[in-house]
């Protein structure tokens, strides 16, 4: 059985009276996917997320119920990019190319709240 993944991003952008732009990205097909799902209760500080160097990406879901600020980094010492804060979570897709780990820094322990990582 082959391991496959097809991922795309859908949605729309609409302005008052200016019509609606549909978002339907190219479908990202990965014929050699490494499907693994990891669900974590993030600890305070740097959380190193390990992955197979063969995987091509990860779908990350930050629970909007979390009150923590989360920062995506390559390594713990990076400045990184804030990807979630109190009440602002959600699902996004990150491409990974020969990456064996990355870091999610959490501003405090996310007690009882789970963050999902679906690798592909």
């Amino acid at each position, binding site marked *: *059985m*082959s*391991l*496959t*993944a*097809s*991922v*795309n*991003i*859908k*949605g*729309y*952008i*609409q*302005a*008052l009276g*200016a019509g609606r732009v549909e*978002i339907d*990205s*190219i479908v*990202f097909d990965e014929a050699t*996917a490494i*499907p693994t*799902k990891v669900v974590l209760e993030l600890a305070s500080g740097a959380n190193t997320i390990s992955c197979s160097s063969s995987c*091509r*990406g990860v*779908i990350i*879901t930050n629970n*909007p119920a979390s009150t923590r*600020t*989360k*920062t*995506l*980094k*390559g*390594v713990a010492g*990076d*400045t*990184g*990019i*804030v*990807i*979630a*804060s*109190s009440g*602002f*979570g*959600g*699902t*996004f*897709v*990150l*491409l*990974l*190319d*020969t*990456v064996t780990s*990355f870091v999610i820094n959490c501003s405090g322990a996310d007690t009882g709240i789970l963050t999902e990582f*679906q690798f*592909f």
Partner: protein
Amino acid sequence: MAAIPGTKISSVYVNATITDSLGIVTEITSLVTENPVAPIGSSRIKLPDGNNTIIVPSGSRGVIITFNDDCDSFKTLKGVAGDTGIQVASPFLSVRNSGVFMLLFGASPPASFVIGSVLAPAGIDPGFTEFLFF
């Protein structure tokens, strides 16, 4: 959801189908991320070698980044130029040169982020990279 005058509203979600080694199919249709004050912002550029600072329009909730099929450089996503970052694409022969991904931001979007691009020999990436802020 109603847009505030002078802005757009956006609504974005992720759709995925993943099949594992047992043939078990995982269908993902994520929760929708909505933004009532979405900016009007997209750009399509051929990245030059080095650290490319991408300015984030105020009010952005996220960005969809697309590397088209002609892209041929190593690309690394960073918060700032000095970061190690996360490698997201590599040259054409790796078959990992193209693709689409998406970032979400917190309540206050960053002023910018960085895409490091390394082409061998050094030059401008022949493919377009598109940024659609929402």
